[in-house]
């Protein structure tokens, strides 16, 4: 059976403290519930969550959806945004987790990456170093999401062409966004050319695609 691995990189830096982190928790749990009732997702989806603030933490290692349990995501009251470090951990994990197709092993579907941030990387040099490495990993799709006024679209743009901007990180906007994320995930297991990317469904109105 082919797995569809999906990685979430979530910003839990100080600025997320309060309502935003609450909204993020609600939206994630809503998304997981939606996916649990999706026939395709139940059988193929594997999810991992990595959080980043001052430290980077593999909150949930790659886990199949039926076994998945979402813990409450918390964040410190203040502190930097180690986006680069998060990409570094992601690079290591993806290399370890992903099964490539060989004559004796069924390959996974190309993994998807969603990176959510409300600020900009504090570790710019490492971030820049990680960009080409992450791009070389053959993700089926990388979606960057910048939430709130102080989120930096341009840094995410260096990582992926698909960057969406949310004006606020409130509950209803995040819910919309993660509904779109689950729609995108449902696109992730179709046959395509060897180098094609996953087709994105049109984003909801609250979500602005950054061109």
């Amino acid at each position, binding site marked *: *059976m*082919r797995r569809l691995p999906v990685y979430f990189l979530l910003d839990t830096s100080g600025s997320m403290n309060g309502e935003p982190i609450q909204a993020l928790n609600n939206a994630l749990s809503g998304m997981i*519930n939606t996916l*649990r*009732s*999706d*026939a*395709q997702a*139940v*059988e*193929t989806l594997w999810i991992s969550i990595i959080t980043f603030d001052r430290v980077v933490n593999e909150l949930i290692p790659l886990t199949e959806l*039926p*076994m*998945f*349990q979402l813990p409450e995501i918390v964040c410190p009251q203040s502190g930097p945004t180690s986006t680069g470090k998060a990409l570094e951990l992601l690079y290591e994990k993806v290399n370890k987790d992903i099964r*490539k*197709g*060989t*004559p*004796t*092993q*069924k*390959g*996974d*579907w*190309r993994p998807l990456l969603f990176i959510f941030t409300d600020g900009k990387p504090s570790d710019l040099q490492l971030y820049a170093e990680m960009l080409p490495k992450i791009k070389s990993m*053959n993700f*089926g799709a990388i979606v960057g999401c910048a939430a709130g006024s102080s989120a930096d679209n341009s840094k995410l743009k260096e990582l992926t062409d698909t960057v969406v901007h949310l004006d606020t990180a409130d509950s209803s906007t995040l819910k919309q966004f993660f509904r779109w994320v689950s729609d995108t995930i449902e*696109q992730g*297991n*179709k*046959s*395509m*050319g*060897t*180098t*094609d*990317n*996953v*087709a994105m469904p049109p984003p909801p109105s609250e979500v602005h695609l950054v061109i």
Partner: protein
Amino acid sequence: MVDIKMYINSLFNAKNILIPTTKQNLLDEFVRSVDCQEAVNSIIENQNFIMEKWKIKNRVADIISHQIVIPNGTIGKHYEAKIDFNKLNFTDLLFETFEGLEELGLSFNKVNSAIEGTPTQSGDFKIKLIFKIKGESESTSPNEKLISLIINPDPKSLWKDIPSDTNDLFWKKDDVTEAASLGDRHIVVASKRGRSHENVGSFRDDDFAYKYFEKTGWSVVAVSDGAGSYSLSRIGSQLACNAVLDYFENHHDVEQNKEFESKLIAFNESKDEMLLKEIEIASKQNLYKATLHVHNKIKEHAEITSKEHPELFNNPKAKTLLDYYHSTLIFALFKKYEFGYVLQTFGVGDCPIAIMNKDQSQTTLLNWLDVGEFGGGTRFITQPNIFHSKEHPMASRFNFQIVTDFSYLFLMTDGIYDPKFVVEANLEKNGKWIEFMEDLQGNNEDNLKVDFDYSNTEISNQLSNWMDFWSQGNHDDRTLAIVY
């Protein structure tokens, strides 16, 4: 026994009452008084009572806040979650009961200390552990601890079956199954819309076609799988199969075929390797023309359709019109001669062609598969670069075989190969093909059987029923053609 005097002393100390040495005797007398002794004993008792109460309250709070994680369940699947109170360090816990299990189809087995049963409801639940701890009095009401329990729905129940839109310009039948004679043999074939398509009401992308050509005596079977991510691939696969037939029906040069056959007969007598080389080259040249014909037929359709229905060509990912039609293609051409069967095959994509010899001791995979490092990555007849790829030369996609006889010739899409063979390496193992045949002949969960007797008129329905097998995570279109 409490030292009453010490207690009084420390009480007075705490209250800043100093007893001068001159009054020590008075104090001693005071301490000895019955009233005082009773009062102190009662204070101590009350203190002990308060401390014990607090200890219990604190402990109960700790137990309630200690997270117990139990695995998720699935409707209809046996569930067992051990709750080891000792391991949790809940040795002082006096278990009473679990609330909320019964309505989920579960119960708590005290012997194994486990939540067991077969869940009947899906959702995000909180079950209640009702308990007391040692030291709590009979009369106090028991404590409640909430434990999260997620029950997944039965995956089978989640699949919807939405019919495809019959008004669509390029509608195609969801399921097709046929049986017929083909040259001197028989063919049974079924092509069924996958659950992933049924679930959203989209079309079957797979297709097949077969024909015996009286003019030349050759028979051909073609199978194609349209790429799920492209909107017109169901037409691509249909066009591809039909164009193969069209080529061998209308464009196969009869004179050239005669020459080809006389070389075959000559080779059978002389066993001249040079002659065999010539035959193989001629075969490749002929099949190459067929594949080019297919490619061009699809291109033609794309060009006409894009003019008539430009609105269908709106995918920003597509680089050429042909991309909308992306389809894999395999086909096998066979003919019986006095000395045996001659087979000519072609394959692009991830669908296998295999032939099993007469006594079933050997099965040969006749093509190599275009499978990428990642699922879904493959190559298509609609990609111009397959015709001149240096990395994967077109010539390597053709195969030429002479066999004395065969029991079965298989052509299938990945919808069959993925669940039944899983990986490429298994396609080269005769044992796996024997298992596959046993599966077809009834060795399966549903005891569904396909009877390959020429007199069996029900064979196409049998194959169609067999093809509905359940395989987790494998819900692509399924197409299987067997020449027997």
